């Protein structure tokens, strides 16, 4: 086998391998600059980075916003554009702006345009838009193309991530139509084929809306190994194609969180070399190591089934994977398998408004109240509820009250097992109501009780500590994830919109 030996002494790699440089687990989180420069010097074939996740909660998709500082994201993205320019290879990002809505794709496109114009460089940019109209999905649902992933059934070993059996009824069908219609935003998670199509457009930069974390890393190796056509990747697990695709997807899963698969998780930069027989992985920060343990353990992370990873169009099975240390900091992985599914599906994410929230925080330091905090909270809740009933013209069930006792059991609630008397307790009142005015009015109505409510045997009126004015904080709309479904599509990019444009300096004047 022909091999390439890197000047820095990194292990030799097969000449037909695809080298993917992953700067960090997500754009905005920071990366080791020196390690990134080392990665660029190691001649990657592509630079790939994830831009988002559902993991920070439903508000970001709910409002089509990014969780990270715009200044940080713009700075890091420009650094990666420079790195791409220096390496002369494509740069791809998926799940732009945390949630992957179309406006977040546009935001990264604008940063790219500013950079290209300022630097006088022509950049061919492909965009993959994955936001969905409710009407399109309602029509798909009427055709029977939406399939639920179970939210309450057991997580089934070896199953498609808890997919329910086909029992459907009319009421459930109509409830799903209502849910789709109520969504503030819906995105589909693009698979590898969308990135391959974008790369075939000759893209220097690919900016995708929501995508699976792995698809953007797996795409180029799958493409170079000739494993995908217009109908998507088609490979059986026990064939050479199944093994080659397994290597690409497994490498992608290991690298998708950056250096989390190494002994220095926060260092960011990871390099994977993928060929038809397997892949090798190494971290690029000084002092970081990948070991068979750190690499194999990463398959557990945020993944319900440790052997299977379900992706658009198929599933990765790592139950037969072997992990071998190449040296003290690199690992070679073989034996992973990909099995294509008979149908191609895209996972959907959607959010809807669940209500409006206000919160208040009051600090109780007075020892006799701290010692009787459970009793005091019960009194407090009863007082607020009776005040709502007396003063507000809303049904009792239209307002949800939560009193979380910070210092006692705010994190674990009824599951808290530790006991003892804290120095002080923060009482966090969370009001959820159907409209913003009611939520704020309930929080204001609760204010005097939070401040002054005495225990029944207390003659003096206590005053507890509000940490700020106003005591009430308007939290705005509460959003909730409401879709746990896949949509079956005729071909991998059927619901996605891929376009390419050249920006910056005219072609031929590139610097």
């Amino acid at each position, binding site marked *: 086998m022909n091999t390439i030996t890197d000047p820095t002494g990194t292990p030799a790699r097969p000449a037909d391998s695809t080298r993917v440089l992953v700067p960090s687990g997500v754009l905005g989180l920071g990366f080791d600059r020196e390690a990134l420069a080392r990665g660029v010097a190691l001649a990657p074939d592509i630079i790939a980075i994830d831009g988002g996740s*559902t*993991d*920070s*909660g*439903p*508000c970001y998709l709910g409002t089509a916003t990014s969780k990270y500082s715009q200044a940080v994201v713009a700075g890091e993205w420009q650094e990666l554009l420079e790195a791409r320019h220096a390496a002369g290879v494509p740069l791809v990002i998926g799940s732009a702006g945390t949630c992957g809505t179309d406006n977040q794709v546009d935001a990264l496109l604008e940063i790219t345009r500013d950079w290209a114009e300022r630097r006088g460089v022509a950049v061919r940019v492909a965009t993959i838009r994955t936001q969905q109209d409710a009407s399109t999905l309602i029509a798909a649902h009427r055709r029977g193309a939406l399939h639920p*992933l*179970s*939210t*309450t*059934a*057991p*997580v*089934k*070993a070896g199953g498609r991530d*808890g997919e329910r059996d086909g029992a459907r009824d009319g009421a459930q069908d109509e409830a799903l139509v209502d849910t789709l219609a109520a969504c503030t935003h819906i995105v589909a998670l693009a698979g590898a084929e969308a990135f391959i199509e974008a790369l075939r457009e000759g893209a220097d930069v690919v900016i995708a809306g929501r995508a699976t974390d792995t698809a953007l890393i797996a795409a180029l190796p799958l493409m170079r190994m000739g494993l995908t056509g217009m109908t998507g990747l088609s490979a059986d697990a026990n064939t050479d194609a199944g093994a080659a695709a397994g290597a690409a997807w497994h490498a992608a899963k290991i690298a998708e969180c950056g250096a989390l698969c190494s002994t220095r998780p926060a260092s960011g930069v990871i390099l994977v070399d993928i060929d038809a027989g397997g892949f090798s992985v190494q971290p690029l920060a000084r002092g970081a190591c990948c070991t068979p*343990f750190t690499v*194999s*353990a990463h398959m*557990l*992370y*945020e*993944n*319900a*089934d*440790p*052997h299977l990873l379900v992706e658009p169009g198929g599933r990765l099975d790592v139950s037969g994977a072997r992990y071998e240390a190449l040296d003290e900091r690199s690992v070679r992985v073989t034996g992973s398998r990909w099995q294509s599914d008979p149908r191609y599906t895209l996972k959907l994410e959607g959010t809807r408004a*669940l*209500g409006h929230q206000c919160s208040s925080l009051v600090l109780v330091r007075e020892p006799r109240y701290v010692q009787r905090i459970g009793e005091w909270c019960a009194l407090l809740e009863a007082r607020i509820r009776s005040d709502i009933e007396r003063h507000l013209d809303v049904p009792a069930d239209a307002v*949800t009250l*939560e009193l*979380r006792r910070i210092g006692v059991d*705010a*994190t*674990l*609630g*009824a*599951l808290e*097992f*530790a006991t003892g008397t804290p120095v002080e307790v923060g009482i966090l009142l969370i009001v*959820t109501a159907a409209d913003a005015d009611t939520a704020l009015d309930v929080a204001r109505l609760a204010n005097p009780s939070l401040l002054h409510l005495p225990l029944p045997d207390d003659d003096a009126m206590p005053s507890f500590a509000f940490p700020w004015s106003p005591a009430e904080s308007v939290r705005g709309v*509460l*959003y*909730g*994830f409401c879709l*746990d479904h896949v949509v079956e599509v005729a071909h991998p990019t059927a619901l996605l919109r891929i376009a390419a444009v050249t920006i910056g300096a005219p072609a031929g004047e590139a610097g």
Partner: protein
Amino acid sequence: MRVAELTRRVRAKNAGPFRLTIDCFCATDADWRRLCAALPAQRVAQALAAGPDTVTRYELPSLRVLKFSLPRPGVQGAVGDRDLHGAQWALVIEALVLPADA
């Protein structure tokens, strides 16, 4: 004997907005075998107030890991959810007291 004494780390994390996964990492094969013998899925379900048949359990000897996956005790970020990333539920599992012969 608590789970914490047989593990070097217990990690809980969302697996998407609707599911939770808990990884119990043991330091030795002996600890892992004792943990596997003493911690059935039903015990984890009970500890997290989950349905008795909703927890799937995986024994991973090469990693010395015992893993549990289940529907999230509440949908991430919905009314009543106390921990967006689901990480603190690990403490409930760490604190579980195992049978005396474990």
